[in-house]
């Protein structure tokens, strides 16, 4: 039915598609694009990326703190000075 509307607005005398018809076509393609975007980049996937980054940060921080705490108990010293 909609296709019929579009074709009916094709002017035989000028051989051009009217402005109203192109506007409708743009609206249609815009809807399709946004639909594809929704499928390709779902909100949950973005949230997962953020979540995984936060987890990475927390794990990294934990490793660093743990390493420093362990390093405080087990350590070695290399004295490079001449006064020993």
């Amino acid at each position, binding site marked *: 039915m909609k296709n019929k509307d579009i074709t009916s607005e094709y002017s035989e005398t000028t051989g051009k598609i009217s402005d109203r018809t192109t506007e409708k076509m743009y609206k249609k393609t815009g809807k399709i694009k946004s639909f594809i975007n929704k499928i390709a980049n779902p909100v949950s996937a*973005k949230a997962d990326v*953020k979540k995984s980054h936060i987890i990475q940060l927390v794990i990294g921080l934990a490793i*660093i703190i743990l390493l420093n705490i362990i390093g*405080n108990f087990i350590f*070695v010293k290399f004295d*490079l*000075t001449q006064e020993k």
Partner: protein
Amino acid sequence: MFTILKKELSSFMTSLIGYITIIVFLLVNALLLWGINSGVNVFDSALATLNGLFFISPWIFLFLIPAITMKMFAEEKKNGTIEILLTKPVSDISIIMGKFLAALIIVLLSVLPTMVYMICIYELGSPKGNLDVGGILGSYLGLLFLGGIFASVGIFCSSLTNSQIVAFILSALMCLTAYIGFDFIAQIPFLSNFDLTISKLGIANHYESISRGVIDSRDVIYFLSITAFFILLTKISLESRNWKK
């Protein structure tokens, strides 16, 4: 990674700012150590040590290293080349490490000429050669570790913004806070019970310890872990582009 390292080094060496930063570093060091009466002047102290150099260098690094790192990601963001760089078949961590190593090499290049001071003091000593070379080499190692931390902080700040000035100010402030901020916090009377623990969180405490010429594994772990933490933060900052939209 090495392609990015080469590109960063060549872009630094072909620009005037690269040479200016190195010359400023050497000039300020030379003036304070050998020229004006600054309190760390070698002739005034009449001691065959390079302690003055290792005292003033971190303060010069506070401005020198942010100046080196400020353009690393900020310029790429401003020019829009970051998108091209990130879509290349290299991992984000390779890009960051390439830039970090480039900054570290530039720091090394600016520190290397100060070895001449060591030779001068070695010759001036009475008797000749009365210098603790081992201790000085340990201090140089500490300076390099310090440079590593400042470079990683600078790269992280550069990844946050597309303005080089903002990146410079932010990284200088963060380096300053990390360097002496904890010492100030430790002096607060309310926290007097934990002053030693709090001051140990700062860079200055570990730098002074390693500058004595004793390489302690605790200091090395501290320097490496802080550097790694800021590299991780940079990686997350770069990948945060996937959070938006």
